C-alpha cells in the first residue's frame, strides 16, 4: 500500500500531538506535576513546587528561649537534611525558612504574614504568647502549624497541631513515678511552684488531679518568670510548718535552680520534679549543680539528648557532625521528632496526591500511630486530645551532652488516663 510522504508526516504529527496532550492533563486553576515515581499526579498548594516543599519555623533564637530555640531548629533541620539526602519527600527537597521572632509577639505576627504565602505549613511555632496571637491566623490561612507547647489550652484549634503528652499529664506520670519508687507516699504534702498562664497553671491541673486520685495534698505557690530569687516562695511553701515530701516546678530553669539550692542548703532533701521547660543544662555549672544532680527528676514526652534509644543515639551522632559547636539541649530530639511528624504527614498527603494545605491537614489527622523513635507512639487523629499520655522520666548526669539521662522509659500512669485533655 502506498502512503504519500505528506500523509505519513501528518499521521506522525497527530500521534505526537495526542501523546503530548495525554501527558498534560492540567486542570484549570491547580498546579500539578509528576511525583517521584512519575506515575502519581499531585495537587499542590502554597509553598510546594515541582521540586521543593517549603516549610516555615518561627522561633526565638536570640532572647529568653534563645538557647532552646536554636537547638530546636537544629533538630528540625537535622531531620529534613536526612530526608533530602534520601531524595526528599514526595520527590521534592524540603526547604526550611527559619525566622527569629526574639520572643516578640509583634515581630512574630509580621513574620508569619510575610512567610505564610510562601510556605505549606510551619514545623515550629515557639512561645505561648505567639501561639495565642497567631492561632486565629493559622485557622484562617489553614497553614498547618506544629506548636511548641504542651498545654491543653491549645487543643481544638484549627490548624494547630500539638505533639507528645501535655504538661499536666507529664506531672501526673512524674508523681506516679515518685510514688512507685517510694520517694513519696500516700498522705504526703507536695509543693507546686508554677508560672501563671497556659504552662504552669495548666500543669497545676495535673498535680491537683493526681493528688485527688493518689491521696496527696498539693500546696501551690505562684511565681512570675522575672523572679529568679525564690526565697519568698520557698518560705511560703514551708509556712505553717508544712513538711514537704517533694517539690514540683512548672516554671523556668532559673526558678528550678533557685528552689533546688534553697531546699538543699536548708536540709530539705526531697525530690524535685519538673516539666521539660524547667531544666537547662547550663545550670549544672552553677553552685546548685550538685543539688540538681541529687534531687532533680524531669518528666517530658521527648527523650533527652543522651537517651539510650537507637534513634536518640543516631540523632546525637548526626548532631555532632552537623553542629560541632552546638550546645545540645533536651529539645534537639523534640525538634527532630516534630519534623518527623510533619515529614510523615507530608508522605501521607503525597500518597493521596494532595500536597495542598487541606491535604496536609487531613493527612496529619489520618496518622494514628506515629513513630519518631524519640517520643512515645502518637495518635494525631483527634484534635481534642494530646496524641500521647506517656512520659519519660529523666535524671541529671552532668557528664553527658544535654545533662540528662533516661531513668524510666515512657510509661502511662493509670491516673493520667482519667485526666481529660
Amino acid at each position: 500500500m502506498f502512503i504519500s510522504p505528506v500523509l505519513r508526516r501528518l499521521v506522525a504529527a497527530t500521534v505526537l500531538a495526542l501523546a503530548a496532550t495525554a501527558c498534560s492533563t492540567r486542570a484549570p486553576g491547580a498546579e500539578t506535576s509528576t511525583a517521584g515515581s512519575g506515575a502519581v499526579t499531585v495537587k499542590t498548594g502554597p509553598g510546594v513546587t515541582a521540586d521543593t516543599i517549603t516549610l516555615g519555623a518561627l522561633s526565638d533564637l536570640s532572647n529568653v528561649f534563645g538557647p532552646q530555640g536554636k537547638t530546636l531548629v537544629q533538630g528540625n533541620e537535622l531531620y529534613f537534611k536526612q530526608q533530602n539526602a534520601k531524595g526528599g519527600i514526595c520527590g521534592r527537597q524540603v526547604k526550611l525558612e527559619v525566622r527569629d521572632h526574639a520572643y516578640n509577639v509583634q515581630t512574630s505576627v509580621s513574620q508569619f504574614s510575610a512567610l505564610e504565602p510562601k510556605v505549606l505549613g510551619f514545623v515550629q511555632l515557639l512561645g505561648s504568647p505567639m501561639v495565642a496571637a497567631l492561632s486565629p491566623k493559622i485557622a484562617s490561612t489553614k497553614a498547618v502549624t506544629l506548636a511548641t507547647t504542651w498545654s491543653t489550652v491549645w487543643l481544638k484549634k484549627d490548624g494547630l497541631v500539638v505533639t507528645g503528652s501535655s504538661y499536666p499529664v507529664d506531672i501526673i506520670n512524674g508523681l506516679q513515678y515518685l510514688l512507685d519508687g517510694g520517694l513519696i507516699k500516700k498522705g504526703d504534702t507536695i509543693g507546686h511552684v508554677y508560672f501563671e498562664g497556659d504552662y504552669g497553671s495548666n500543669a497545676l491541673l495535673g498535680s491537683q488531679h493526681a493528688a485527688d486520685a493518689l491521696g496527696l495534698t498539693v500546696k501551690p505557690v505562684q511565681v512570675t518568670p522575672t523572679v529568679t530569687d525564690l526565697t519568698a516562695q520557698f518560705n511560703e511553701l514551708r509556712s505553717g510548718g508544712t513538711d514537704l515530701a517533694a517539690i514540683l516546678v512548672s516554671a523556668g530553669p532559673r526558678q528550678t535552680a533557685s528552689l533546688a539550692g534553697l531546699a538543699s542548703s536548708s536540709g530539705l532533701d526531697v525530690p524535685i520534679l519538673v516539666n521539660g521547660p524547667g531544666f537547662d543544662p547550663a545550670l549544672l555549672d552553677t553552685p546548685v549543680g550538685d543539688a540538681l544532680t541529687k534531687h532533680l527528676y524531669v518528666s517530658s514526652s521527648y527523650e533527652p539528648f543522651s537517651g539510650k534509644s537507637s534513634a536518640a543515639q543516631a540523632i546525637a551522632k548526626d548532631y555532632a557532625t552537623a553542629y560541632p559547636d552546638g550546645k545540645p539541649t533536651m529539645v534537639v530530639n523534640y525538634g527532630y521528632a516534630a519534623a518527623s511528624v510533619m515529614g510523615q504527614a507530608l508522605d501521607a498527603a503525597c500518597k493521596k496526591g494532595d500536597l495542598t494545605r487541606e491535604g496536609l491537614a487531613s493527612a496529619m489527622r489520618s496518622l494514628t500511630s506515629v513513630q519518631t523513635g524519640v517520643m512515645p507512639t502518637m495518635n494525631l487523629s483527634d484534635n481534642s486530645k494530646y496524641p500521647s499520655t506517656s512520659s519519660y522520666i529523666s535524671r541529671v548526669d552532668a557528664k553527658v551532652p544535654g545533662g540528662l539521662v533516661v531513668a524510666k522509659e515512657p510509661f502511662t500512669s493509670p491516673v493520667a488516663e482519667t485526666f481529660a485533655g
Partner: protein
Amino acid sequence: MKALQLLLLGLSLGSIYSLIALGFVAIYKGTKVINMAHGSILLTGAYVVAMLSPHVGFLAAAAAGVVAAAVGAIVVERLVSAARTTDHLVLTTLTIGVDVLLATELTHRIGSSVLTMGDPWKDRQTEIMGTVLPQARIGATAVSVLIIAAFFLVFHKTNFGVRMRASADDPRTAALMGIDQRRVALASWAIGGGLACVAGIFLAAFPNPGLDQTAGLIALNAIPAIIIGGLDSTEGAVLGGLIVGVTQTLVDGNASSLHFLGEGFGTVAPYVVMLLVLLWRPSGLLGSKELNRV
C-alpha cells in the same frame, strides 16, 4: 510573723536595688543624664567577674569587675559627651542606643551560659526568726550598707564631695570657681558604673542561680526606685531602692492572695507605688522641688 520575714527579705533585695539607684543618681547629679545603658554596664561588670573569678579568686575578680564597669561607664560618658548637643534629653536617648549595642554584644558573648560569681557565701543560709535567709543576701546587705555609708561620707565630708555637690547644684558657677566639670562628669560615671557592678555581683549570688544574658533588664527595677526617691537625691535613691525591694517581695510573697490583681503583679507593684508617690509629691519623696520665680 510572715510579714516580718518578707520585710527582711525585701530589705536585703532593696539594698541591692539601692546600689543601682545610687549609681543612676550619681550619674544624673554629675551630668543631668539618666544613663539608660546602666543595665548593660552592670552586666559587663558581672561578666568580667564571672570570667576571672575561677582564675584569680573572687575578691580580685570583683575588683577587676568594678574597674571594668567603671571604665565602661566612662567610655559611655565620653561617647555621650562627644555628641554635639547639651540637651540632656537627647543625651539620655543616646544612652539607649549605647545600651542596645552593648547588650547585643554581651548577649552574643554570654550565649546560653549562666554567669556565676564564685562568691564565698555559696549556697549557705541562716535561719533568722523562723525564716530562711541566704548568707549571700545578708552579705549583700552588709556590703551595701558599708558602700552607701562610704559614699555619703565622701560626698559630704571630703573636698572631692564638695566639688561634686557644687557641680550638681550649679554647674556654671562651679566651673567659674575652678572646678573641672569634665573630671566631675568622669568621676560620677565611674562611681555609677562601679556601684552597678557590685549590685550585679549580689544579684547573681545565691539564691539566684547566676546571671544570664537578660539580666541587664534587672537594672530597670531601679527606675521606679529613683523616681520614688527623687531623681536628684542620693538619700532618696537609697530609700527608693528599699521601698521597691520591700514592695516587690511583699507582693511576690503574697502572690496567691493577691491573685485577683493579675499575673506578675510583683513586677508592676513598684510602678504603682511610683505613680502614687508622683501624685502626692511630683519630685519624689526627697527630690528637690522645682522653684519658679514669678
